[in-house]
């Protein structure tokens, strides 16, 4: 990832900032130009829930360049219904189950090499008791 694009993505990556539509109150993540519910463009920043459950997962045998192994990719549905793509952390793939409770943590996501930057962002781990 290039430094400039990482700068643009800081809100959602580091603070899980999504949007609330001022027209219809729909909440969405990640931020985008139009509301998914009403196509309105008057949207205000809001943080979205940091806990949810695993909707699907897959252990990627050969992670893309810049990512470390093992890499457990997942789709996590946050409390309230938003689904996002992420990595799971602090767990082995054979312990992961669809439906398990997870919570957001901030971790190193990738190292892009000399012309890029260290990308930090959200991962999800099993919810601590």
């Amino acid at each position, binding site marked *: 990832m290039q430094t400039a694009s990482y700068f643009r993505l800081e809100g959602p990556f580091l603070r899980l900032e999504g949007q609330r539509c001022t027209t219809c109150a729909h909440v969405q993540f990640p931020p985008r130009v139009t509301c998914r519910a009403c196509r309105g463009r008057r949207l205000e920043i809001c943080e979205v829930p940091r806990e949810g459950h695993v909707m699907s997962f897959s252990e*990627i045998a050969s992670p893309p360049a810049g990512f470390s192994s093992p890499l457990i990719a997942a*789709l996590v549905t946050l409390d309230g219904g938003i689904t996002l793509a992420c*990595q799971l952390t602090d767990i082995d793939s054979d312990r992961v189950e669809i439906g398990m409770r997870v919570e957001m943590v901030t971790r190193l996501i990738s190292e892009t090499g000399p012309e890029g930057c260290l990308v930090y962002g959200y991962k999800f781990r099993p919810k601590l008791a």
Partner: protein
Amino acid sequence: MRDVYIVGLGLTQVKEHWNLGLRELGANAIGSALDDAKFDSAECLYVGNMLSGQVSRQENLGTLLADEAGLLPIEAVKIEAACGSGGAAVRSAALAVASGAVDSCIAVGLEKMTDVTADVIAAGLATASDQDFEAAFGLSFVGMAGLLMQRYLHVTRRKRDEFAPFVINAHKNAMTAEHAMFRSGVSLEQYLRCPMVASPLGVFDAAPVCDGAAAVVLCSKQALKAQHRPVRIAASAIATDTIALSARSSLEKLLAAETSAGKAYRLAQCAPGDIQIFEPHDAFTIMTALSLEACGFAKPGTALDMAAAGAFNADGALPICTFGGLKGRGHPVGASGTYQIVEACLQLRGEAGKNQIAGAKRALTQSIGGHGAVAVTHILEA
């Protein structure tokens, strides 16, 4: 809109073409298709391709191939819709002829993948997905297919081995297809023992990286010649869905594939039961199942049952992947959609040789990009 006919077919063998680059692959397929149509040239050229900028550091493919094929100063541009590029190029060509803007048009699907390492190809394929919010988190293209497959297994309460019939059938059909990459079969045991690439998705669930080009020549009714064996494009339709997998309303359903198939059935005034051959986008076994269900050939969650019963084999109720599909023939990504259409035309012309499905009058092809983010459906009639 006017009727559009496919009158010329050209393809190269799908394999690792160490000695051929983009320009040779593309221009050879174009030349073969023009020869087959007995046309010297056409009024425009659409090039379906996904990865040329990243793999070959070459864009402006419209001009590159117009030049290499000796067709200058023909109107020519590249059409890109990820892995659906080959189908999208045919769609653009069909629109050009149907609109009356031109009487003849060439569509070529083309991909050169084997000049670079697997890492470069993986990064290239990931450009089909949401770069900022999915690929940036390490979700590779196969990883996303793994997520789809895991969800499907969970919701339908299936096991991975139930996908084996798709792989065995595709490879069996490829054995007798001269232009196919893999001319050897795959056994159930081989499928079960293959290594995981993105669990539960194994290496035999995925189509191979390879090179290839396929072309078609389209024309209007007025431009038909007596010696043509025309195949009519009864329907051509594209639909889109969210680029992010995580934003889909359902992971067990390919909405864009369903929408584009629905449009195609309406245009062709037919139903799934009227189709005798289906060429699905079997880049991954899960995509075969989801595509079958999206097109109405199987009810939701039942594609694996029908596969187990042999419904999709060459002698089944609805033969699929009749020359091996993306899995057996090979998946040069931006070319696959065009290969599907060339193969369906060979079937409808009765020129499919050992792979001929007897009495086929109507075929449906579906080319998909970005795991269902864009879907191109064609219905072809003899």
